[in-house]
């Protein structure tokens, strides 16, 4: 009888803890946000929380996704490679499909003859090396479309025919360099990339999901490489710790009805996964060969590492950092920690990929009522530890005092020479309002007078403490950057996220 009583107590507890009225909670990649409106018709109340693919994968693997019933990323492939992640997942069901392909401005596609004949990744890499076109792509370390593209290009260029391993990756690195020499735009997310592209007439196209490319307002010619692609299959995945199996089944059944599949296809340009739903003409008739995806974590990490350290156009990152008196205490501690995180102190995969890269130029511009000096670092091609150590030591010595001259400091960042062989960006972190020196309007006038190559340098703004939200937003809009909010979260997380855009 004692067992029965205990059981009844548990019943009472569980009835209060889990009510059927609560929404079904999904931890999702930002790329499925376009499905949120459609899901309102499903009859299941769903609540989305968005995160990056890699970041989300690590949350799940660590067991930190306990508040959620399901995940919905563009792919579970990377997640499945992380130790301990598979056990956290219950049933997974693919909902739709979208290959990662190249979209080019129609005139450029015609000029290259790619609108009329089959093209391989190898052709594309050769043309890229000859500077005949440029493109934008998301960062493979923070976004699945970039990672899928990198895997696809590497698999196709390696000429191996089987899944990539460490040896093939190092052999294919020179060819990858050719291909990525044409990359002029990067981003931490697919959506932001599409927006940033619109503002950059000098970039000829994008490597992205077919669905994003078909959804662009300005029509693109899609190039489906004949040697293969890597596709996203968007598995809605029940987490093993969830007790909402019924809602999951209901949602999946609804998503996979032919009617919903057709709606998804029309509204989001993704291919249906359910057999028997006819493809719309916009998808064309090119046969899609799916390239093998790595099945070892080491190979996936090696590929991302090679991209960041050897293949990509190297970055030049300028950090404009508020070290005024108001930063005293916890705030300056957070700033020190955030910078140290980027020197390799965070050993999670996401943390490792966020660190300052080999070949990267890093400039730290701490300021108060005036600049407190300029620190320039050049991370070498190999053996980055010594320079990372210097950055760490300097970051740990930062102290807070003085007023806040935001625009003088930001202007100093734009005074830095621009190297056409690098991808330059500025990070502006401040915890309060401008109290000294020039005003926002002064900066605006200054910026508008800058030459094109300097105007192309974006400022990524971090909101912290008592930032002036309106002015910070204006800076991001003016320079084509973006705003990251660390007021309620950690400064280190915001810095890591920004790394995807550098």
């Amino acid at each position, binding site marked *: 009888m004692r067992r029965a009583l205990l059981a009844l107590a548990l019943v009472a507890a569980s009835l209060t803890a889990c009510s059927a009225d609560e929404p079904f909670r999904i931890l999702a990649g930002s790329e499925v946000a376009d499905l949120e409106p459609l899901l309102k018709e499903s009859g299941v109340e769903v609540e989305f929380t968005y995160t990056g693919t890699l970041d989300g994968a690590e949350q799940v693997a660590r067991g930190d996704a306990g508040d959620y019933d399901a995940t919905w990323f563009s792919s579970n492939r990377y997640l499945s490679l992380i130790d301990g992640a598979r056990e956290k997942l219950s049933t997974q069901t693919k909902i739709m499909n979208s290959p990662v392909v190249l979209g080019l401005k129609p005139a450029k596609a015609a000029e290259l003859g790619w609108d009329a004949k089959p093209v391989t990744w190898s052709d594309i890499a050769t043309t890229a090396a000859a500077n005949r076109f440029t493109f934008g792509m998301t960062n493979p370390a923070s976004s699945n479309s970039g990672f899928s593209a990198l895997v696809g290009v590497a698999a196709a260029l390696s000429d191996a025919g089987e899944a990539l391993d460490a040896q093939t990756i190092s052999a294919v690195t020179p060819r990858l360099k050719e291909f990525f020499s044409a990359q002029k735009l990067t981003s931490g997310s697919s959506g932001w990339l599409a927006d940033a592209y619109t503002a950059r007439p000098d970039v000829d196209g994008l490597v992205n999901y077919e669905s994003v490319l078909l959804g662009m307002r300005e029509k693109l010619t899609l190039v489906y490489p004949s*040697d293969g692609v890597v596709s996203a299959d968007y598995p809605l995945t029940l987490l093993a710790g969830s007790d909402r199996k019924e809602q999951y089944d209901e949602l999946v059944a609804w998503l996979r009805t032919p009617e919903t599949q057709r709606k998804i296809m029309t509204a989001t340009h993704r291919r249906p996964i359910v057999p028997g739903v006819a493809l719309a003409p916009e998808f064309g008739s090119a046969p899609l060969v799916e390239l093998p995806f790595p099945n070892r974590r080491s190979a996936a990490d090696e590929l991302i590492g090679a991209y960041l350290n050897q293949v990509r156009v190297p970055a030049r990152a300028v950090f404009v950092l508020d070290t005024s008196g108001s930063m005293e205490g916890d705030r300056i501690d957070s700033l020190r920690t955030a910078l140290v995180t980027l020197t390799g102190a965070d050993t999670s995969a996401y943390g490792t990929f966020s660190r300052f890269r080999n070949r990267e130029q890093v400039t730290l511009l701490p300021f108060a009522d005036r600049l407190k000096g300029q620190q320039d670092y050049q991370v070498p091609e190999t053996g980055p530890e010594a320079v990372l150590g210097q950055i760490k030591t300097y970051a740990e010595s930062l102290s807070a005092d003085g007023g806040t001259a935001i625009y003088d400091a930001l202007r100093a960042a734009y005074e830095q020479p621009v190297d056409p062989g690098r991808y330059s960006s500025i990070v502006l972190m401040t915890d309060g309002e401008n109290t000294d020196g020039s005003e926002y309007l002064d900066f605006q006038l200054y910026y508008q007078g800058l030459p094109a190559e300097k105007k192309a340098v974006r400022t990524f703004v971090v909101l912290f403490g008592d930032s002036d939200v309106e002015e910070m937003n204006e800076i991001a809009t003016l320079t084509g950057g973006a705003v990251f909010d660390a007021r309620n979260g950690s400064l280190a997380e915001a810095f890591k996220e920004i790394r995807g855009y550098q």
Partner: protein
Amino acid sequence: MRRRLLGVALAVLLGGGVVAALVLGNLGSGVTVVRGVIGSEKKPFFDDPQVKAAFAKHGLQVEVDTAGSREIAAGVDLSTYSFAFPSSAPAAEKIKKDRGVAATFAPFFSPMAVATFEPIVATLTQAGVVSGTTFDIKKYLEIVDKGTRWDALPGSAYKARKRVLLTTTDIRTSNSAAMYLALTSYVANGDDVVRGADAKVAERVSPLFLDQGYSESTSEAPFEDYLAMGMGKTPMIMVYEAQYAARLFAADGSISPQMRLLYPSPTVLSKHTLVPFDENATEIGRLLTDDPEFAELAAKHGFRTADPGVFAGLAEGTPLTRDLVDVVEPPTYDHLEQLVAMIEERYL
């Protein structure tokens, strides 16, 4: 009374509010909810309204979760389930032993088969791997040994630069891949069932799995890719015959005119075996095995049952074969596990 209260409590804990309502409703109407964990390829069967109705006639409602059969045997916490229903006899044998279960039920079975497309059949026929509807594993292994790619096969209409490899599920989690290992290891071992950790055999069959790259953990997912995305993604795939047969019998248009089913030689039978942990689950096992209504429903879902006539009736006039030839036995659970473990090491 004590047992019933516990039952209610567990059901509430397991399924939340909805199940609670069902069980509470239960006390009046006499419907018993039974939960099981099954291989994904049987999910359509348990989801079928006719199957649900047939169970309801006996006062039963069966709720299932899916997992790879190897996960069911060695990963999933079985304590929350009334039965496990993996897709192979070796996996069921392991669970039976671990849980001290007296009797199991093997209500239906399905041979392993190769689902592919006409242009692939033509190419592989020319290469000597396929004759008629037979897929010769020995010849196939020779092609894999050489690292042959599709575009290198004479007369290949499939111009992909990918290696000639059957798509399978992940050998580390799923039964259909383990069944594939059973039949390929038989050939690699000189036409003999593998008895232990044979390094030479492991060496030869490892590329069949590793060189594919990422593979899925359940057999439904890649089969769906085969159906929906066609030859580009999945030129040929190892399936349970039942997966293909169910689609064929349903005549839902998912089997397109270019699709073909081949039988590997040798093949193994996947014996879907239900391991019951309580009385209700034993009743489910009995019904599935003995009740002709369930045998007919199982055949509709492509499974072969004890009475060969049921399946043969449906298969009449289809490419499905009535008589299976060259069927070999899979290795024991332990021997198969040892072989899998040796392949698993190579993923690191």
